[in-house]
């Protein structure tokens, strides 16, 4: 059998020297969440497969009229992305909440806002970025020209982080509630509307020759705004949920 023993205990008091710093902490939380995502592949793949299936079903349902498909493609990809991200939001804090890790986050001397930002960044890397990368394959089903596909990817690249950031607020607010999944969609989907409009609009404007830059700039503004406010609002919501 194994025997328990006391090992040399360190003296009391803080570790001297500067702390690890926000960037190291951020990187640490991202790495931890990515490890967890890899070990729980099924959950992550679920929402990605959902995205692929939804986008692929439309051409089958609508029929092979190329002009109709082309004009519908950006909107469909964006709506499917919204829904796929929303499906994955429930997982953002739920596991940490049940097993007590979230309590440890609250009690960490590191600022909660950094920990939250790390979790959101990891969420985007596993639930948002893959959507961007799969888009060229899916766009082929709609015969989207390469220029439009590139614009769609650029818009998704700027828009999906906003979806994760805003979604985190909803996930934190509905933490521990029964039927939180329905509530989260009611809370979050209306806030996704601007991203949807600018995101799909960028591709359409580009296709008719107006250029998508204006829409991309607006998406960038959404991203900046969300980056500034969402982690803060999420931290506040988490504190309320944990009380």
């Amino acid at each position, binding site marked *: *059998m194994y025997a*328990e023993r006391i090992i040399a205990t360190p003296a009391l008091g803080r570790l001297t020297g500067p702390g690890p710093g926000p960037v190291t902490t951020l990187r640490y939380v991202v790495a931890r969440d990515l490890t*967890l995502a890899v070990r729980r592949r099924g959950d992550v793949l679920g929402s990605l497969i959902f995205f692929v299936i939804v986008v692929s079903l439309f051409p089958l349902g609508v029929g092979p009229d190329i002009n109709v498909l082309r004009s519908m493609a950006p909107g469909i990809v964006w709506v499917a992305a919204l829904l796929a991200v929303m499906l994955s939001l429930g997982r953002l804090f739920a596991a940490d909440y049940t097993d007590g890790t979230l309590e440890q986050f609250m009690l960490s001397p590191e600022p909660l806002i950094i920990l939250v930002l790390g979790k959101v960044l990891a969420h985007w890397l596993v639930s948002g970025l893959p959507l961007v990368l799969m888009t060229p394959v899916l766009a082929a089903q709609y015969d989207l020209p390469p220029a439009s596909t590139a614009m769609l990817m650029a818009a998704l690249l700027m828009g999906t982080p906003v979806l994760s950031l805003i979604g985190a607020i909803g996930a934190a607010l509905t933490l521990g509630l029964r039927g939180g999944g329905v509530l989260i969609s009611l809370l979050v989907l209306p806030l996704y509307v601007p991203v949807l409009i600018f995101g799909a609009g960028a591709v359409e404007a580009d296709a008719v020759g107006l250029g998508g830059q204006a829409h991309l700039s607006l998406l960038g503004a959404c991203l900046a705004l969300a980056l500034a406010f969402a982690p803060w609002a999420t931290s506040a919501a988490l504190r309320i949920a944990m*009380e």
Partner: protein
Amino acid sequence: MLSATQLECVRGDRRLFSDVSFAIDPGGLLHVEGRNGCGKTSLMRLLCGLSRPERGQIRWRGAPISELGEEYRADVLYLAHSNGVKDELSALENLLASARIGGEPLSEDGAREALAALGLHGREDLPAKLLSQGQKRRVALARLTTTRKPLWLLDEPVASLDRSAATWFESMLATHLGRGGVVVLTTHQEVCTPSGSSQHLRLAD
């Protein structure tokens, strides 16, 4: 070091306890007792600052904890009912993660040594979901061997531990109190504590 004056805790529309006061000196231990549902865990959550008391004040080194913020959190080690052990991570990764999040990064060797001290030698790299309830508790308790934090808030630390691990825990407590640490503890089991410095707080309902 840690003192509370006339704490009152209300959950929903039920008053769990009121007029709870105590003061613990360095090297002191407070043993919180009471029936299930009398508010032991709520008191712990008040003490670590997760929730706020309805009335009353908690002070650490003379300053209210609500004002200390991060400075207080750097001094507190809270082991909750739930172990904070992730099923998908190995015992080693769990210990490294909880130390890192607690602001006290561990080296891998240090973490292995701590786990070995808790009788988990050879199981460090197993996913925590393959460990028994008691072994998960041991992973959580392994933090105690390496931490430098002076204030330990331990909610049911010996639940699901076997006798030898409980004995280990008692000597760990004695060591911590001996170096001037402060412990607040809730438990239903008998825990032998150094008698001189320990107080009992009974939460009535």
